[in-house]
């Protein structure tokens, strides 16, 4: 067991864990940030996706000891007060979910995608989210949501 100081959603948090413990379980069990989900434990479903230094990462595969000083952003850190992030709002606007279990991971990956590519085509969205599973099958709606978010970000600029 070691002590780690990690930067999560703009705050410094100290946790005690084995350095090999995946970030996902530190977030969920110690910091009670349960938005990132366990789906498969092998980086195949994207449900655990968080942003590490702005990059989407499957947190089930990232040992907390490998984080270094890189900042972590989870779905809980996305909204500004009660105002949803445009990507969250877009998912809500087109009901791009059913059970919602994959949604936090989908949203975090989409936020990273739009930061790099503000106007992605449908094919670019599909390619970027290829590692994410929505078992309820709302893929078409998710593509529409990301395109809707791109539009609303563009309008806000």
């Amino acid at each position, binding site marked *: 067991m070691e002590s780690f100081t990690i930067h999560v959603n703009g705050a410094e948090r100290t946790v005690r864990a084995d350095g090999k413990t995946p970030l996902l379980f530190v977030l969920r069990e110690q910091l009670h940030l*349960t938005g990132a989900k366990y789906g498969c434990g092998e980086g195949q479903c994207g449900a655990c996706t968080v942003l590490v230094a702005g990059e989407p990462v499957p947190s089930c595969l990232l040992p907390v000891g490998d984080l270094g000083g890189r900042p972590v952003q989870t779905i809980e850190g996305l909204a500004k007060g009660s105002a949803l992030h445009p990507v969250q*709002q877009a998912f809500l606007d087109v009901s791009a979910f059913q059970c919602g279990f994959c949604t936090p991971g989908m949203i975090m990956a989409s936020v990273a995608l739009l930061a790099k590519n503000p106007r992605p085509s449908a094919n670019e969205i599909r390619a970027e989210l290829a590692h994410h599973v929505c078992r309820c099958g709302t893929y078409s709606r998710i593509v529409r949501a990301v395109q809707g978010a791109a539009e609303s970000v563009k309008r806000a600029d």
Partner: protein
Amino acid sequence: MRTEPINDALTRREAAKRLGSGVLLLFTAGRSRADEEKAGPQKHPLLSSRLHIGDDGTITLLTGKVECGQGIRTSLTQVAAEELRLDPARVRLLMGDTALAPNDGGTWGSLTTPQTVPVIRQACASLRELLCRCAAEEWGVGPAELPVHNGQVRGADGRVYTYRDLARSPKLLTAVSVNAPLTDPFQWQICGRPLRPVNGAAIVSGSHQYSSDLSLPGMRHGRVVRPPNYRCRLLSFDASRAESLPDVRVVHDGDFLGVTAPTAEAAAAAVQLIDVRWSDEPLGDPQTLFGDLKAHAKPPELKEFDRYPALMQAGSISDGMARAVHRLQSTYRIAYIAHVPLEARTAVAQWQGNRLTVQCGTQAPFVVHDEIAHAFQILPEQVRIVVSDTGSGYGAKHNSECELEAARLARGSPEPVRLAWSREEEFTQSYCRPAALMEVQSGVDGDGNIVAWEFHNYNGGAASLSPPYRIPNRYVAYHASESPLRQGSYRSLAAVGNTFAREMHVDEVAEKLGLDPLEFRLRNMENPRLKAVLQRGAERFGWGKSKSGNGVGYGLACNLEKGGHLALFTELEAHGKQVRLRRMVAVFDAGAVINPDILSNQVEGAIVQGIGGALFEELKFDRKEIVNGKLSSYRVPRFQDVPDLEVILVDRRDVLSAGAGESPITVTAPSIGAALYAACGQRVRQLPLLAGMEG
């Protein structure tokens, strides 16, 4: 996020807390059961067992159904708000708590809409009627013809009477009135519209609480030692190394062996240190699976009040075949597949003496309740199951598996125990969708009418066994068999295999006759709603406008299942085993549409889920165990697999609403199978299709 423990010994205060602040309707579980009996010979449930009025005017609707992504938290809110004449924002649902909610049956079989919606509608209409009656009595006015708007009755002099006023009335302990008039669907103001999911904001903000997000103070974590397969018996074990770890407890009971520890990591590490010997129990030979299923088939078994009879017959097959000009026989196979709900099963169990509370994500809280009470030989009132909205199920979460294991691990421990299955456990420890063999034999007369139809399903089940075509001589039978893998429910279950076999066979017959598959179906069909969805889909899709060939193919399939009338048209391209779905058009008529956006989402989702079983999903096993129980080796549909999919809903306000979460999955495989044949000339008679393709 921390959650307060819910005690099973439900005091008034605790019930009030879970129901929310407000006026409590003299409501406890025990009390309501006694009052139910008083409610009279008709045994109509008390209003107070279904509805609770808060002192802020919010109405809580209690139901034993659960939300697993199918959207009933929203559609039931609409149904209640419609009859209560109340803003949907002032209706909340308390679902799946066996101590508080009525037993509405398991959340399965697309039964919420046809069975629970009418019950809820009646209860809410009764409450609205009572509101009018009480207002009329209090004001001393005439017959209660007072209209209700926005949750209140307004008198001529401007006085108002609200549900909040009603909450103080002892009349709430009356039974639901069967005479309270229901709202005509043509007059709907709240139903029939695309109300956004009521839990949507929580979902997109990551704050929605699933059972795997629950954390109780002092909670321990469990892990179960797994045998190679479910048939193995525990011969011996040595847990001394595990027990030497700090604060690890080993739990052993018959063939059940597990540990609890302060953290999930510690529990997983402890399990690794247990030396265990299991008996060697073969699963059977996957190479001879389908022959074995037929060899061990039992005669069709007819049960009373069976939704899906195992045997249906009319006329005489031999007479029909004698009249036939064209005869065709073919055999179809479908593989075992897994549900893969993205949220793996999780349960938190807590004992207090002989009382047990399990918080979990089951689809069937009352089934789990009864199974657990039976397993521990305790009284039903000593068990409480509390369900969180679950991260999907598709028929996977019907029985107490994880829940019972959590309860076993927690037994004798003062702390609650959390058991979270891993993805591998999801694949290997639960039941799967049955593999099945279907044998079809048909005869067609000189005018292109199907005159004989004999159909046998081995091991799959009886849903969609009966063809939706006009056939005078028919014999359809389902034969139960002995399955090497544990099998159970699945979205639409047997209807997937039966529809695949039937529609593929119909296409083969049409081809033999040189008839267009659409024309052949319409010629042999009487059901006007099924005809209408086929015709509408054909028009929208442009059926017959382009010719299949050069690796591009067009296909269609239709079905009538659980009251849903379905047609699905597919365009795909195939180059060897590289198959890409380009476009699909679905038309669905399931009666009056309560929420078009949720319904459309369900139809899309079911069709997309069907793509997996149609093209590539297959649970593989050897003689010892399941061998591809991981998401990296079991492929489910992903973004790149999904075509441009258009869903057209037929809203029939004049017809009762049917359930819709399941049946659209049944048309995916035959529609793709037909298009695949049209594209490349390979008639693949097995699922998944890619496994049966040559080249």
